[in-house]
């Protein structure tokens, strides 16, 4: 079963240790990045890693504006409640395992080398193939 672990710039409840990253020491930033890398490597070794990507905070909303017209772009929306920072996709045995791993990822160190306790969103993927159902 595949799950998405979603990290937010904005929109998730506040972390316990929520000093913004640009106010950490360089060593704390390094330790954080290393933790994330080690975590991905460890999941590769357990055969549970699928993908991990980060997103830039900038971007825009785009929509169709009718035949023959250029798409309309808007934003960035400073007031938008939800802003995705990145994700990790895992392929695990159960929901419980997905929750366990999200908990470990959320323990990544932040300011003062203490765990951030960041809220991560865990979402199951819909599969592409449907089991026969008669």
């Amino acid at each position, binding site marked *: 079963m*595949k799950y998405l672990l979603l990290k937010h710039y904005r929109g998730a409840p506040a972390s316990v240790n929520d000093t913004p990253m640009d106010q950490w020491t360089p060593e704390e930033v390094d330790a954080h990045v290393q933790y994330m890398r080690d975590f991905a490597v460890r*999941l*590769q*070794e*357990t*055969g*549970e*890693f*699928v*993908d991990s990507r980060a997103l830039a905070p900038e971007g825009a909303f785009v929509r169709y504006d009718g035949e023959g017209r250029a798409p309309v772009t808007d934003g960035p929306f400073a007031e938008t409640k939800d802003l995705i920072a990145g994700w990790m996709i895992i*392929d695990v*045995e159960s929901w419980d395992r997905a929750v366990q791993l999200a908990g470990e990822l959320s323990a990544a160190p932040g300011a003062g080398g203490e765990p951030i306790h960041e809220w991560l969103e865990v979402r*199951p993927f*819909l*599969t*592409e*193939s*449907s*089991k*026969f*159902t*008669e």
Partner: protein
Amino acid sequence: MNESLLRELVPAVIGVLVRRGADFASAEDAVQETLIRALETWPADPPRDPKAWLVTVAWRKFLDAARAEASRRGRELAVDAEPSAGPAPATDDTLRLYFLCAQPALPAASAVALTLRAVGGLTTRQIAAAYLVPEATMAQRISRAKRRIAGLPLDQPGDLATVLRVLYLVFNEGYSGDVDLAAEAIRLTRQLVALTDEAEVAGLLALMLLHHARRASRTGAGGRLVPLGEQDRSLWDTGLITEGVSILQAALARDRLGEYQAQAAIAALHADAPSTAETDWVQIVEWYDELLRLTGSPVVRLNRAVAVGEADGPQAGLAALADVSPDLPRYAAVTAYLRERAGDLERAAELYAEASRAAASVPERDHLTREAARVRQLLRP
């Protein structure tokens, strides 16, 4: 070169290496590397005796790896470099590999991957593509599985029920990537039928054939899911149905009923009917009763309610839902279907919409959303 012929040789070649003294994990790695090389070189330069070629190359690869490992540890090589070529009991080896790869202690996803590689002769890349994970992840999943079963001798008796469950999981995965896993599951189950003498193995094969026979009718344009009642029965593969039914009859005659035979019996009754209206629903309900007795499964109870609804009317079907937990996946979908048949369109539309939000797959979600839309359209003046 015939790739499937090459793959069929894989378990026997692993067996030869193990009997020559290689441990299973190293033998399996050596054969996998050999397989990849064969896939590259055989099209231009096919060997006269494919199995002998595989054994020779795989044994050399095994020895190279074992020597490297021995020198790294400063030890002598534990196996003879020049083994005597004894008689080869290849079929026994293959059966034992099924048991070894489907150890009950392994997580299902690992047992599936290991079976597809060591018994099915698929490459790690093909398995990774079929399960939509990176090749490195699948390689690790397989080597971890091998570490977990390290030390288990190849001749240890296995658990047939786990083997059947693994094959059934592979069959259910269907078709993604360049490998048709349903067809592969059928091939492996056919091979297992030839190696064993159990009614349930034949029952599983019959079940797979009867479902596979209807595959072309089960999806419409753009992968749209077509429910049984709307399937174009002229698309059903009558050859596979005939084969499935005759395998099932032979299995049932042995009087050792199990869950796969009971499921196959239900599939056979569907396959035999010219339409849903002319389906023998009474007999299907009886098979569901058998299946319930055998498994006690809540999912069976849910499916049974659908059959009861067809046999005795929607109210009876809804009554049969009374002892089914509403937490089950597809509970809302089944209730919606029965409510609609009972004429309660309002509630049916709500339930279809609720079911679509709980669906586990994209085709199922789209189908249920369409059903909700269809019923809502009926409600408009």
